[in-house]
């Protein structure tokens, strides 16, 4: 019972944080709302019995990635956003798309209506089980992802580095 209450409360907090993320005008408030979303997602994982995933969620997303988000916002000193009316294309495509998406979610939920609740602790939560999955069954996708991340890092370095012509002129002067 307590579980269900906690689960619903943190689910609501998560959704509220996500809505607030979109509604806030200041980038730093949006980033902090995202931290709230990450944190409440971690609590949901914890309530489902996946302690390790919950801890990793907090350490990696809330503790590292979102800190970098906040860091960049602080560095750029981004100000408040201005409200625009939104483009007509967004209205024309977005509203039907959203409706279709909602219908699809409802349909999937109805099909699987016989699944009442997620059984507690049935998820592979122990670190050794997760390691077994990652390094045995899904080894190839895991390694491919690491290559993908490496490419992203190299791309960031290429984008951030000054072009060679600029460096050359600096050396001359």
């Amino acid at each position, binding site marked *: 019972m307590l579980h269900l209450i906690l689960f619903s409360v943190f689910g609501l907090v998560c959704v509220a944080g996500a809505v607030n993320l979109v509604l806030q005008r200041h980038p*730093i408030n949006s980033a*902090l709302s995202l*931290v709230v979303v990450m944190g409440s997602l971690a609590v949901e994982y914890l309530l489902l019995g996946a*302690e*390790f995933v*919950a*801890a*990793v969620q*907090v*350490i990696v997303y*809330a*503790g*590292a990635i979102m*800190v*970098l988000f*906040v*860091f960049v*916002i*602080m*560095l750029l*000193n981004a100000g408040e956003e201005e409200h625009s009316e939104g483009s007509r294309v967004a209205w024309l495509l977005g509203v039907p798309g959203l409706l279709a998406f909602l219908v699809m979610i409802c349909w999937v939920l109805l099909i699987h209506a016989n699944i009442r609740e997620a059984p507690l602790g049935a998820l592979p939560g122990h*670190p050794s089980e997760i390691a077994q999955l990652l390094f045995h069954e899904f080894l190839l996708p895991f390694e491919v992802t690491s290559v993908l991340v490496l490419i992203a890092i190299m791309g960031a370095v290429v984008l951030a580095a000054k072009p060679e012509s600029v460096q050359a002129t600096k050396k001359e002067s």
Partner: protein
Amino acid sequence: MPILTFIIVAVIKIALALFVLLTAVAYTVWLERKVVGHMQNRWGPTRVGPFGLLQPAADGVKFLFKEDLTPPHVYRPLFIAAPMIAVIFAVTSIAVIPFGNWITLGPIHTPMQITDLNIGLLVVLGITSLGVYGIALSGWSSNSKYSLLGGLRASAQMVSYEIALGLSLVGVLILSGTFSLRGIVESQAGHFWGFIPNWNLFRGGQFVAFFIYLMAAYAETNRIPFDLPEAETELVAGYHTEYSAMKFAMFFMAEYANMVTVACLASLLFLGGWSGPVFGPQIVQDILPLVWFVARIFVFLFIYIWVRGTLPRFRYDQLMSFGWKFLLPLAIANLVITATVVVLKK
């Protein structure tokens, strides 16, 4: 244990742990002023009480009665929230730290720990990694260039050194095979060769990891020689330049509470936690491990202060290259060697 006793015991334990932690924070400040004073040929605090022992209380009263200034140009919600975030995350991690063995008082048999989680170590790392928000947001919301620079430096520094810190702990985890802090301590019980204790520092050969941990922990707690976020000579006081009264005291408390947590973790993971000679009647046997644990923490805090009294501050590029080009490769090498040795032994 019936539910009511459980709740009462839990509340008493939480209150005790909080009281002890906050007192320890106050007296670490006293110890620091005293020790650094003697290192610099001064007396440190002497006026308030014998040996200046009541100085922390006097400081606390002073902080409470000082005018709480809020500069007009700040972003108020985050300016007020930032010190709270810092102190809350600094204090919360004490919840999973075990202080000693089980204690028996009449019918109640309970561990000296608020709660034992099977992911205890990850919880401490997660909570301390959130502490950086307090510093980063205070720097940003103050809307002053010194604070902003301090906040930026703090977030870059803490994210960088967190990686070396986390990697240095993986060797210990491989050796003990659990995330539970109590389990890690219990895996270090006993001696080898008759007298050398089975600590991870000796038995596991984790001395490299131990020094990586210590250095990264100094950077995580923004202590000299890594105190660039509050470098007085360049940034006035860094991220807490605009803060006064109790809000400033909260940052101070957060820093010292983090120091205590880091010292607790170091002794739990590398120095066998509360292991030590135990003798005498039951109640003494229950209390003695606590004494050994506190002794280790005291040693770590003393080293902190010693380093502060000895070393100058790093330059910013030195800080970054030290973390990324020296500590991180060393931590990875230690991890690979430890894993290889453990696999070969099996």
